Protein backbone atom coordinates (compact mmCIF):
# COMPACT_ATOMS: atom_id res chain seq x y z
CA UNK A 1 0.00 0.00 0.00
CA UNK A 2 1.27 3.50 -0.75
CA UNK A 3 2.05 5.64 2.27
CA UNK A 4 -0.19 8.53 3.23
CA UNK A 5 1.01 11.87 1.85
CA UNK A 6 1.27 14.89 4.13
CA UNK A 7 -0.75 18.04 3.39
CA UNK A 8 2.41 19.82 2.22
CA UNK A 9 3.16 16.95 -0.16
CA UNK A 10 -0.39 17.01 -1.53
CA UNK A 11 -0.02 20.74 -2.10
CA UNK A 12 3.25 20.13 -3.93
CA UNK A 13 1.40 17.66 -6.18
CA UNK A 14 -1.41 20.17 -6.72
CA UNK A 15 1.03 22.86 -7.81
CA UNK A 16 3.47 20.83 -9.90
CA UNK A 17 0.84 18.86 -11.81
CA UNK A 18 0.37 22.28 -13.41
CA UNK A 19 2.85 24.18 -15.52
CA UNK A 20 6.22 25.46 -14.29
CA UNK A 21 6.61 29.20 -15.02
CA UNK A 22 9.10 30.28 -17.67
CA UNK A 23 11.03 32.74 -15.52
CA UNK A 24 14.57 32.68 -14.13
CA UNK A 25 13.52 31.45 -10.68
CA UNK A 26 10.53 29.24 -11.55
CA UNK A 27 10.23 27.57 -8.11
CA UNK A 28 10.21 30.80 -6.09
CA UNK A 29 6.50 31.56 -6.30
CA UNK A 30 5.51 27.97 -5.47
CA UNK A 31 7.85 27.98 -2.47
CA UNK A 32 6.21 31.15 -1.17
CA UNK A 33 2.72 29.67 -1.62
CA UNK A 34 3.76 26.53 0.24
CA UNK A 35 5.49 28.48 3.01
CA UNK A 36 8.80 26.75 2.28
CA UNK A 37 12.24 28.05 1.47
CA UNK A 38 13.12 27.56 -2.18
CA UNK A 39 15.84 25.03 -1.30
CA UNK A 40 13.44 23.14 0.98
CA UNK A 41 10.96 22.84 -1.86
CA UNK A 42 13.66 21.58 -4.24
CA UNK A 43 14.78 19.04 -1.63
CA UNK A 44 11.20 17.84 -1.21
CA UNK A 45 10.72 17.47 -4.97
CA UNK A 46 13.90 15.40 -5.13
CA UNK A 47 12.72 13.29 -2.20
CA UNK A 48 9.36 12.64 -3.91
CA UNK A 49 11.27 11.56 -6.99
CA UNK A 50 13.59 9.31 -5.00
CA UNK A 51 10.59 7.65 -3.37
CA UNK A 52 8.96 7.05 -6.74
CA UNK A 53 5.94 9.20 -5.90
CA UNK A 54 7.00 11.61 -8.62
CA UNK A 55 8.04 9.47 -11.57
CA UNK A 56 9.97 12.31 -13.13
CA UNK A 57 10.03 16.08 -13.47
CA UNK A 58 10.21 17.79 -16.80
CA UNK A 59 8.51 18.23 -20.14
CA UNK A 60 5.47 16.25 -21.23
CA UNK A 61 5.30 16.22 -25.03
CA UNK A 62 2.70 15.78 -27.67
CA UNK A 63 4.59 13.13 -29.54
CA UNK A 64 2.53 13.57 -32.71
CA UNK A 65 3.58 17.20 -32.94
CA UNK A 66 7.16 16.13 -32.32
CA UNK A 67 7.01 14.04 -35.49
CA UNK A 68 6.34 10.66 -33.91
CA UNK A 69 3.10 10.22 -35.85
CA UNK A 70 2.90 6.43 -35.79
CA UNK A 71 1.70 5.04 -32.49
CA UNK A 72 0.92 1.38 -32.08
CA UNK A 73 -0.34 -0.59 -29.15
CA UNK A 74 0.98 -4.10 -29.71
CA UNK A 75 -0.98 -6.81 -27.92
CA UNK A 76 0.22 -10.39 -27.41
CA UNK A 77 -1.38 -13.56 -26.27
CA UNK A 78 1.24 -15.19 -24.08
CA UNK A 79 0.77 -18.24 -21.84
CA UNK A 80 0.34 -17.18 -18.21
CA UNK A 81 3.51 -18.95 -17.09
CA UNK A 82 5.64 -17.02 -19.56
CA UNK A 83 4.09 -13.58 -19.34
CA UNK A 84 6.36 -12.22 -16.58
CA UNK A 85 9.57 -13.04 -18.44
CA UNK A 86 8.14 -11.75 -21.71
CA UNK A 87 6.95 -8.51 -20.09
CA UNK A 88 10.34 -7.82 -18.52
CA UNK A 89 11.99 -8.49 -21.86
CA UNK A 90 9.69 -6.09 -23.74
CA UNK A 91 10.19 -3.44 -21.08
CA UNK A 92 13.94 -3.57 -21.65
CA UNK A 93 13.54 -2.11 -25.14
CA UNK A 94 14.14 1.62 -25.27
CA UNK A 95 11.46 2.02 -27.96
CA UNK A 96 8.74 0.56 -25.71
CA UNK A 97 7.24 3.40 -23.68
CA UNK A 98 4.59 1.41 -21.82
CA UNK A 99 4.33 -2.28 -21.08
CA UNK A 100 1.62 -3.96 -19.02
CA UNK A 101 0.09 -7.32 -18.34
CA UNK A 102 -3.68 -6.88 -18.44
CA UNK A 103 -6.73 -8.97 -17.64
CA UNK A 104 -8.26 -10.80 -20.59
CA UNK A 105 -11.90 -11.11 -21.68
CA UNK A 106 -13.59 -13.93 -23.62
CA UNK A 107 -13.70 -11.70 -26.71
CA UNK A 108 -10.22 -10.25 -26.00
CA UNK A 109 -7.59 -12.90 -25.23
CA UNK A 110 -4.53 -10.62 -25.32
CA UNK A 111 -2.72 -10.28 -22.01
CA UNK A 112 0.53 -8.47 -22.74
CA UNK A 113 0.67 -4.89 -24.07
CA UNK A 114 3.52 -2.75 -25.38
CA UNK A 115 3.12 0.78 -26.70
CA UNK A 116 5.61 1.97 -29.30
CA UNK A 117 6.00 5.20 -31.22
CA UNK A 118 7.67 5.70 -34.55
CA UNK A 119 8.11 8.20 -37.33
CA UNK A 120 6.11 5.90 -39.63
CA UNK A 121 4.20 2.63 -39.62
CA UNK A 122 6.93 0.58 -41.19
CA UNK A 123 9.17 1.44 -38.26
CA UNK A 124 6.49 0.15 -35.88
CA UNK A 125 6.07 -3.07 -37.85
CA UNK A 126 9.80 -3.80 -37.94
CA UNK A 127 9.97 -3.13 -34.24
CA UNK A 128 6.98 -5.39 -33.50
CA UNK A 129 8.71 -8.23 -35.33
CA UNK A 130 11.91 -7.61 -33.36
CA UNK A 131 9.96 -7.64 -30.10
CA UNK A 132 8.15 -10.84 -31.08
CA UNK A 133 11.48 -12.48 -31.91
CA UNK A 134 12.91 -11.37 -28.58
CA UNK A 135 10.12 -12.98 -26.55
CA UNK A 136 9.45 -15.89 -28.93
CA UNK A 137 5.70 -15.23 -29.12
CA UNK A 138 4.07 -14.49 -32.45
CA UNK A 139 0.38 -14.33 -31.61
CA UNK A 140 0.20 -10.56 -31.68
CA UNK A 141 -1.44 -7.67 -33.45
CA UNK A 142 -0.74 -3.97 -33.86
CA UNK A 143 -3.46 -1.49 -33.06
CA UNK A 144 -2.49 1.78 -34.70
CA UNK A 145 -3.93 5.00 -33.40
CA UNK A 146 -5.53 7.08 -36.11
CA UNK A 147 -6.51 10.07 -33.99
CA UNK A 148 -5.72 11.48 -30.60
CA UNK A 149 -9.03 12.53 -29.07
CA UNK A 150 -7.70 13.55 -25.67
CA UNK A 151 -4.35 13.74 -23.96
CA UNK A 152 -4.13 15.47 -20.62
CA UNK A 153 -2.36 15.14 -17.34
CA UNK A 154 -4.47 13.88 -14.48
CA UNK A 155 -5.29 16.44 -11.80
CA UNK A 156 -4.97 14.79 -8.38
CA UNK A 157 -6.40 15.89 -5.04
CA UNK A 158 -8.72 18.45 -6.59
CA UNK A 159 -11.91 17.43 -4.76
CA UNK A 160 -10.33 17.19 -1.29
Amino acid at each position, binding site marked *: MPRQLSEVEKNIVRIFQGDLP*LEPYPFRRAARELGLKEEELLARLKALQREGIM*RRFGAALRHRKAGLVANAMIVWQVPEAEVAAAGRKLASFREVTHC*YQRQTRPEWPYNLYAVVHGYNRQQCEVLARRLANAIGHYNYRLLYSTAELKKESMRYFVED
Partner: protein
Amino acid sequence: MDQLDRRLLNLIQEEFPLVARPYQEIGCRLGLSEDEVIRKIRKLKTEGIIRRLGGVFELRQLGYTSTLCALKVPPGRLEEVAAVVNSFPGVTHNYLREHDYNMWFTLIGPDRRHLENVIRAIKERTGITELLELPAERPFKIRVNFDLEAED
Protein backbone atom coordinates in the same frame (compact mmCIF):
# COMPACT_ATOMS: atom_id res chain seq x y z
CA MET B 1 12.46 21.39 -35.14
CA ASP B 2 16.23 21.38 -35.47
CA GLN B 3 18.86 19.19 -33.81
CA LEU B 4 19.30 21.67 -30.97
CA ASP B 5 15.55 21.59 -30.26
CA ARG B 6 15.70 17.79 -30.12
CA ARG B 7 18.64 17.87 -27.70
CA LEU B 8 16.81 20.41 -25.58
CA LEU B 9 13.63 18.30 -25.57
CA ASN B 10 15.47 15.12 -24.61
CA LEU B 11 17.26 16.96 -21.82
CA ILE B 12 14.18 18.58 -20.33
CA GLN B 13 12.21 15.33 -20.55
CA GLU B 14 14.75 13.21 -18.75
CA GLU B 15 17.06 15.40 -16.72
CA PHE B 16 15.29 18.64 -15.94
CA PRO B 17 17.53 20.08 -13.21
CA LEU B 18 15.78 20.58 -9.87
CA VAL B 19 17.77 23.70 -8.97
CA ALA B 20 16.81 27.31 -8.30
CA ARG B 21 17.73 28.47 -11.85
CA PRO B 22 17.06 25.41 -14.02
CA TYR B 23 16.95 27.29 -17.33
CA GLN B 24 20.40 28.70 -16.69
CA GLU B 25 21.69 25.21 -15.87
CA ILE B 26 20.13 23.78 -19.06
CA GLY B 27 21.73 26.63 -21.00
CA CYS B 28 25.13 25.76 -19.57
CA ARG B 29 24.81 22.21 -20.86
CA LEU B 30 23.67 23.26 -24.33
CA GLY B 31 25.80 26.36 -24.75
CA LEU B 32 22.84 28.74 -24.60
CA SER B 33 21.97 31.64 -22.35
CA GLU B 34 19.20 31.36 -19.77
CA ASP B 35 17.10 33.72 -21.84
CA GLU B 36 17.59 31.68 -25.03
CA VAL B 37 16.50 28.50 -23.22
CA ILE B 38 13.36 30.20 -21.94
CA ARG B 39 12.56 31.54 -25.41
CA LYS B 40 13.11 28.16 -27.05
CA ILE B 41 10.89 26.37 -24.53
CA ARG B 42 8.21 29.04 -24.95
CA LYS B 43 8.31 28.52 -28.72
CA LEU B 44 8.01 24.72 -28.37
CA LYS B 45 5.01 25.26 -26.10
CA THR B 46 3.37 27.66 -28.54
CA GLU B 47 3.89 25.11 -31.31
CA GLY B 48 2.17 22.53 -29.10
CA ILE B 49 5.17 20.19 -28.96
CA ILE B 50 5.57 20.67 -25.21
CA ARG B 51 2.27 20.05 -23.50
CA ARG B 52 3.38 20.85 -19.97
CA LEU B 53 6.44 21.36 -17.83
CA GLY B 54 6.14 19.92 -14.35
CA GLY B 55 5.90 16.82 -12.21
CA VAL B 56 4.72 13.48 -13.55
CA PHE B 57 3.26 11.62 -10.62
CA GLU B 58 2.85 7.91 -10.00
CA LEU B 59 -0.89 7.51 -9.62
CA ARG B 60 -0.71 4.36 -7.47
CA GLN B 61 1.64 6.08 -5.03
CA LEU B 62 -0.93 8.85 -4.65
CA GLY B 63 -3.55 6.23 -3.78
CA TYR B 64 -5.29 6.39 -7.17
CA THR B 65 -6.16 3.54 -9.50
CA SER B 66 -6.57 3.27 -13.26
CA THR B 67 -7.85 1.10 -16.06
CA LEU B 68 -7.94 0.83 -19.85
CA CYS B 69 -11.24 0.69 -21.74
CA ALA B 70 -12.11 -0.06 -25.34
CA LEU B 71 -15.46 0.87 -26.85
CA LYS B 72 -17.01 -0.40 -30.06
CA VAL B 73 -18.38 2.83 -31.53
CA PRO B 74 -20.40 2.91 -34.79
CA PRO B 75 -18.30 4.96 -37.26
CA GLY B 76 -20.98 7.64 -37.62
CA ARG B 77 -21.06 8.34 -33.89
CA LEU B 78 -17.38 8.87 -33.12
CA GLU B 79 -17.51 12.58 -32.45
CA GLU B 80 -20.58 12.49 -30.26
CA VAL B 81 -19.35 9.50 -28.24
CA ALA B 82 -15.87 11.06 -27.82
CA ALA B 83 -17.51 14.16 -26.37
CA VAL B 84 -19.24 12.03 -23.71
CA VAL B 85 -16.12 9.98 -22.90
CA ASN B 86 -13.82 13.00 -22.79
CA SER B 87 -16.16 14.92 -20.51
CA PHE B 88 -14.99 12.84 -17.54
CA PRO B 89 -11.89 14.42 -15.94
CA GLY B 90 -10.48 10.95 -15.10
CA VAL B 91 -10.27 10.15 -18.82
CA THR B 92 -6.73 11.35 -19.53
CA HIS B 93 -5.96 9.69 -22.87
CA ASN B 94 -8.35 8.75 -25.64
CA TYR B 95 -7.25 7.35 -29.00
CA LEU B 96 -9.02 6.03 -32.05
CA ARG B 97 -7.42 2.75 -33.08
CA GLU B 98 -7.87 0.56 -36.14
CA HIS B 99 -10.11 -2.20 -34.82
CA ASP B 100 -13.84 -2.91 -34.26
CA TYR B 101 -13.09 -1.80 -30.72
CA ASN B 102 -12.06 1.57 -32.04
CA MET B 103 -12.07 3.97 -29.09
CA TRP B 104 -9.42 3.27 -26.44
CA PHE B 105 -9.24 5.41 -23.34
CA THR B 106 -7.50 5.38 -19.98
CA LEU B 107 -9.45 6.18 -16.87
CA ILE B 108 -7.98 7.29 -13.53
CA GLY B 109 -9.87 7.65 -10.26
CA PRO B 110 -9.49 7.56 -6.48
CA ASP B 111 -10.83 3.98 -6.22
CA ARG B 112 -12.41 1.07 -8.12
CA ARG B 113 -15.93 2.18 -7.28
CA HIS B 114 -15.30 5.55 -8.92
CA LEU B 115 -14.00 3.86 -12.10
CA GLU B 116 -17.02 1.56 -12.22
CA ASN B 117 -19.40 4.49 -11.83
CA VAL B 118 -17.76 6.36 -14.71
CA ILE B 119 -17.87 3.26 -16.93
CA ARG B 120 -21.54 2.72 -16.11
CA ALA B 121 -22.28 6.37 -16.88
CA ILE B 122 -20.47 6.15 -20.22
CA LYS B 123 -22.49 3.07 -21.19
CA GLU B 124 -25.74 4.72 -20.15
CA ARG B 125 -25.11 8.06 -21.82
CA THR B 126 -23.86 6.57 -25.10
CA GLY B 127 -26.14 3.52 -25.15
CA ILE B 128 -23.08 1.46 -26.16
CA THR B 129 -22.76 -1.76 -24.21
CA GLU B 130 -19.81 -3.26 -26.05
CA LEU B 131 -17.09 -2.01 -23.75
CA LEU B 132 -14.00 -3.96 -22.77
CA GLU B 133 -12.49 -3.04 -19.46
CA LEU B 134 -8.92 -4.28 -19.25
CA PRO B 135 -7.33 -3.42 -15.90
CA ALA B 136 -3.57 -3.84 -15.57
CA GLU B 137 -2.45 -6.81 -13.54
CA ARG B 138 1.21 -5.93 -13.58
CA PRO B 139 3.07 -2.91 -14.94
CA PHE B 140 6.41 -3.72 -16.54
CA LYS B 141 7.21 -0.23 -17.75
CA ILE B 142 5.68 3.21 -17.64
CA ARG B 143 7.98 5.55 -19.48
CA VAL B 144 6.34 8.64 -20.81
CA ASN B 145 9.21 10.36 -22.52
CA PHE B 146 10.21 9.92 -26.10
CA ASP B 147 13.68 9.71 -27.53
CA LEU B 148 13.73 12.28 -30.32
CA GLU B 149 17.39 11.94 -31.26
CA ALA B 150 17.49 8.20 -31.82
CA GLU B 151 16.12 8.21 -35.33
CA ASP B 152 17.96 10.28 -37.85
